């Protein structure tokens, strides 16, 4: 086990990490209670294996994989927004029905008002922004707890949705870009180009970051780890693309069905956008700071109230995006869009993915991993012919396990001084 000591340009003596020590540090962090997304990833693998063994024909089919993306898209989008809210230790219980209201606004503009798709999309996102602004103002400036504000909004938006649609009405959206968003797939050539481009950009960013640190003489991760990460992501993206570009129509002679679902790059795009905002901009840094210690953030000159309002705005805009994906998948909007289990699944996705309910800890990728876990459970149990009652119970148990793992990890972290 060779570790070389070196002086960095900074002058602080540090140990240059090797692949070995990097793994040891990771194991130490895990044992210290800093689990991140690990339990969710392990859970996802385990669930996939269980359902795969129980229903090898149907669960492990290309069609089902594509289906999983479409199933997860709506709640993953809502969960991404919720992660911003959860990072401050707040909650948004109204995100589900906010998604429904925004989706209904879009559908009504498209059909009854005959507006074009871009106008309907922008209007829907704008409604989300206004909702977020109102929630954030009530929480940050008036000082009402977010639980109460958003619980009230949850009830109110349910009513707004009913009024918008008229009692029990169902508005179908016309064919077009919006409808294909969470329904259709990209052509095979596009799928491959996009996949290869994504891998290339990821590798380039990793390389540039590594170079940047080497040039400055800063401590770098071992090359092996960087290569391993790039290889892992490349394998994941390329293998998924390979499966999805296979023919998955029941009767290919009638209509051919292959290519990556459009939902996948949509999820990926938002994942990259919000990960960049949280990790690489000072705005993101300030969100973590306010979530970790609001008083310290205030003393550092960070506008705490504005940050608090802004996360609700992002949360509700992403709820609108989620609503659009839900409406696109169903092809219509009804008074139950964004209702029933949508919100709880979304909060569940964030928490299962590894975001803490207590603020300060979380990443956007958690929404994707947690969303995948929920979609896999829903999808797999349906294939195994469990009743919806059993599915709810099982999902509840998984959420409880995730929250339990988080709580135990926090205790462990407190015990090792790694709060």
């Amino acid at each position: 086990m060779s570790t070389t000591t070196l002086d960095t340009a900074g002058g602080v003596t540090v140990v240059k990490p090797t692949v070995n020590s990097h793994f040891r540090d990771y194991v130490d962090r895990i044992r210290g209670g800093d689990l991140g997304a690990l339990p969710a990833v392990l859970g996802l693998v385990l669930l996939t294996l269980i359902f795969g063994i129980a229903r090898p024909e149907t669960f492990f089919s290309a069609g089902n994989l594509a289906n999983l993306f479409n199933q997860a898209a709506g709640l993953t989008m809502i969960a991404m927004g919720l992660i911003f809210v959860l990072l401050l230790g707040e909650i948004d219980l109204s995100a589900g029905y906010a998604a429904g209201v925004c989706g209904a606004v879009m559908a009504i503009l498209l059909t009854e008002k005959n507006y074009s798709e871009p106008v309907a999309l922008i209007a829907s996102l704008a409604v989300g922004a206004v909702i977020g602004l109102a929630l954030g103002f009530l929480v940050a400036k008036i000082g009402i707890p977010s639980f109460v504000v958003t619980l009230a909004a949850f009830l109110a938006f349910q009513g707004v949705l009913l009024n918008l649609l008229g009692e029990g009405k169902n508005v179908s959206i016309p064919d077009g870009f919006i409808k294909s968003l969470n329904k259709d797939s990209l052509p095979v050539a596009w799928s491959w180009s996009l996949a290869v481009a994504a891998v290339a950009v990821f590798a380039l960013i990793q390389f540039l970051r590594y170079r940047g640190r080497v040039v400055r003489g800063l401590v770098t991760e071992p090359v092996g780890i960087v290569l391993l990460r790039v290889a892992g992501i490349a394998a994941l993206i390329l293998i998924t693309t390979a499966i999805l570009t296979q023919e998955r129509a029941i009767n290919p002679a009638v209509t051919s069905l292959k290519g990556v679902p459009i939902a996948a790059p949509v999820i990926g795009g938002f994942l990259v956008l919000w990960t960049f905002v949280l990790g690489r901009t000072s705005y993101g840094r300030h969100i973590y700071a306010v979530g970790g210690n609001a008083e310290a953030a205030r003393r550092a000159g960070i506008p705490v109230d504005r940050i608090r309002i802004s996360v609700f705005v992002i949360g509700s805009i992403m709820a609108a995006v989620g609503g659009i994906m839900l409406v696109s998948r169903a092809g219509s909007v009804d008074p139950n869009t964004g209702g029933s289990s949508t919100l709880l699944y979304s909060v569940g996705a964030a928490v299962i993915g590894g975001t803490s309910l207590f603020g300060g800890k979380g990443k956007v990728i958690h929404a994707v991993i947690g969303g995948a876990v929920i979609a896999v459970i829903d999808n797999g149990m349906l294939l195994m012919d469990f009743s919806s009652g059993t599915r709810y119970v099982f999902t509840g148990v998984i959420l409880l396990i995730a929250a339990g793992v988080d709580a135990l990890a926090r205790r462990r972290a407190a015990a090792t001084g790694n709060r």
Partner: protein
Amino acid sequence: MAATPLLELRGIDKSFGPVQVLHDVGLSVYPGEVTALIGDNGAGKSTLVKCVSGIYTIDAGTVTFDGRQVSVHSPRDAADLGIEVVYQDLALCDNLDIVQNMFLGRERKRGIVLDEPTMEQMAGETLANLSVRTVKSLRQLVATLSGGQRQTVAIAKAVLWNSRVVILDEPTAALGVAQTAQVLELVRRLADKGLGVVLISHNMNDVFAVSDRIAALYLGRMAAEVKTSDVTHAQIVELITGGRSGHLGLPPENPTDFADITPGVHQ
């Protein structure tokens, strides 16, 4: 010995409603020296610091910084002058790492992207300048640091900005023996680098170990400003508890200023 003070307060008054907390307080902070600000609980130490750092505005008096009269209305003004305060409750975010904490609210950016390499380099240089060599990695979360290390990060955060006066509020209050020694050594090094250091402390050992001057507050008045080498432990304790010691300190109180409230004694 530096002739002119870097920071000089004269005739500072501060009241909160009917309660006057500071009466005509003066304080001089010299570059390259540690000035210990002492006094019993409620003597006005924290209020004085908050007046200097711009959290409170003063009712009367002047603040002179580097020979110029200045007015400090907000923490931002104080920071612009080069006055940094390390508060007792540290004001660090547990969920951020050392570099992130040191640059909190003043991040370096290239375009809209955070310039992490530059920040890490500057943080490393600052810590190295302070001869801090006890952290494992600059990317360690602050939550994993010991009390002494956290205090060190808080102090390093204050000196990162080419500050000229650093005010430390009870930096050793929560620390063990070895860590206290470490932090005091750091305080001494700050002064040796030419900064004006104000050390607020209750601990006489700390005060005599590092300070060049002692300023004793007593019930909102500056009882004495003396050189540490000119006074004894006992004299300082008398200044803190009674406001005077022999020829030092406030003039004796006039007994007629006080009503006798001894039970059973009536005029």
